[in-house]
């Protein structure tokens, strides 16, 4: 064999070796991320959140139809046990369904822990809820007092009677109240909906944060507007 042929052989075999080593970086090679996991074995927070929560609570916890979870004040007042319980068991009387496999959902307890931990890691901020009223009410509110509290803190946007003002729509609508728990109302009064421009407890009036009692009172006032039996379709929506 001539020297030229040897060189040719060496060159082509090194090209082949190079080519083969490039095979590992070909685009068709299945990536680790494509590994087909059982649904119950998914432990990636974003995947879990996007598949189970984003529909109602919005991408990145904002601008969803339901309560925004990307809310440091809310995450500051609610503890992990309550949050876990809400995700796992759902909230009776509202649209929040149970997600735990033990309650008819599809998620394992571990996955729920990952979701709760992930939300906190992403969106909680130290001190965001400092001085905020507690998550749970510490006593029954007084609806009569609540009327005054409403006039002070809420009426500027929601209208004097709560039927709408700068903020669109009524918050004393029977159907709305029937679909909302007192705890939901309390959470929104305290933590607001920053994505939609609803202030939190300390920002309604400059320099005058709401007290825990005031929150309980205004929620009691709202709850007093809740009809025992909301009227049927197409009538009540104009109430």
């Amino acid at each position: 064999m001539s020297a030229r042929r040897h060189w040719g052989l060496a060159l082509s075999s090194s090209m082949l070796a190079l080519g083969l080593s490039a095979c590992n970086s070909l685009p068709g090679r299945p990536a680790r991320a494509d590994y087909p996991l059982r649904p119950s074995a998914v432990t990636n927070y974003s995947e879990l959140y996007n598949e189970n929560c984003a529909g109602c609570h919005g991408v990145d916890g904002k601008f969803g139809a339901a309560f925004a979870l990307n809310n440091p004040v809310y995450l500051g007042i609610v503890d992990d046990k309550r949050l876990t319980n809400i995700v796992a068991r759902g909230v009776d009387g509202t649209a929040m369904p149970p997600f735990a496999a033990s309650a008819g959902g599809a998620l394992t307890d571990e996955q729920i822990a990952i979701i709760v931990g992930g939300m906190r890691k992403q969106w909680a901020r130290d001190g965001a809820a400092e001085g905020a009223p507690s998550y749970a009410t510490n006593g029954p509110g007084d609806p009569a007092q609540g009327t005054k509290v409403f006039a002070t803190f809420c009426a500027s946007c929601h209208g004097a009677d709560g039927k709408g003002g700068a903020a669109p729509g009524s918050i004393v609508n029977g159907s709305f109240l029937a679909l909302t728990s007192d705890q939901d109302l309390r959470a929104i009064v305290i933590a607001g909906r920053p994505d939609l421009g609803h202030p939190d407890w300390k920002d309604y009036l400059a320099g005058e944060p709401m007290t825990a009692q005031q929150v309980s009172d205004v929620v009691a006032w709202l709850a007093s507007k809740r009809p025992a039996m909301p009227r049927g379709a197409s009538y009540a929506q104009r109430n």
Partner: protein
Amino acid sequence: MPLRDWTKAIGDWFELRLGLSSTLSEVAAHPVPRSSASWWYVFGSATFVIFIMQIVTGICLATVYTPSAEGAWSSLIYLNYTQPLGWYLRALHGWGSDFMVGLMFVHMAQVYLFGAYKYPRELTWVAGCVLLLCTLGMAFTGQVLRFDQDAYWGLGIGASIVGRFPFVGFKLVHLILGGPIIAAETLSRFFALHVFVIPGILIGFVALHLFLVLKLGINEYPMPGRIVTREHYLQDYERTVTGDGEPFFPFAAQKDMVFAGIIILALLVVAAISGPFGPNGQPDPTIIKTVPRPDFFFLWLFAVFALLPPWSETFLMLVGPPIVIALLFALPFISGTGEKSWRRRPISVVIVILAFTTIGTLTWLGTFSPWSPKMEAWSEAPTPVDYVKGRTPLELQGAILIQSKQCRNCHALGGEGGMRGPALDDVATRLTPDQIVRQIIQGGGNMPAYGKNLSPAEVNAIVAFLNTMHPRSELGARNSVKPEQPISDVDSHHSPAQ
């Protein structure tokens, strides 16, 4: 003795006994009509070349694959993630099957349009039809061997079609699955079919097909007006070949080789870029979070089965395919003589266009199956932000209920969600609030009635939200009766006579 002489001596020894090279050179040199060396005549050989590749990659895969219900999925995962280049082997075999089915259909259409099935090549066509069925059989059994969720549910659908046969249905299902359900024996059965039975038949019929092509000669390029008759065709062909013939190799074969080369390269590149098919999730019927889809070449059937009216299903599934297959086989006996050129056979051209358009459209529909609800849409497709901003508390509750009551699984918002029902983005331009209430409570069309599953407050909220679903520039639909009057007034004085 130098190396070259050694090789020659060994070659001569075999040649004396086998006479292979003289036979081969005779075959290679057999004269073909000049006109048949056309780029239109390359699809059959390309299909054959892909078939050879499928055999090679298939054998390589068989060295690793475990044909058991417990081991199959893991061995595919092993190939994909552990075995060096195992994924590429799987990609080649998987894409190879798509290429083979595709080329086969193009070859068939070409043979049909060029009248190559006519006298005396009827048997070649019949053998080709057997090859078609075998190739589709390989595609289906191959999909089952990729034992994942698609395979599991695809097999379930196949078995339930077979189970529709009157009287013998159950026995047939038993025969195919090796029991009443997909279980341990099922995969062994399909392995045997995919690796021994069907390839055996395929090789036999490929041999027959090729033998007939050599024996009867390649079809000349059809000329409009040159009519095939039983009396004259053979002499005419003989004259064409002797008068204006060329040796098959290299004259006609060079285009085959160039095209086959291009196809192989394309396969290598597509496999490298797109990678192997699955396996997706484990074939476990307890995993309901799955959207099974058949492989590409069965998507059109998937669409047909989904769209057939329920009352016609059993009849059409059991009677339709045999009729179509019988017609395919009978073709050369129905129109065995006459015009070959597609220029003088308008109906054939229409049939081919119709078949390809139909199959193409159904395949396209099969890729996203608008008839199936998107079962995850409610929790993973967010309400479009524009539909959240500026809404009232009640409307927002309605938007939540559209999600949590899983309306989104059938109705899209902002292009996301199911397509079984109409998209709701402009529903308020089509229905008045009262009509929306009626539709939700009583259902209608394909929609179930939700009256018993929703409280009045929930219906109110959903209707309030849907009533906002109209473009800013366009008013929502209003009652035609006293349209200027607020609806609540109309309602409170409601009586049918008015």
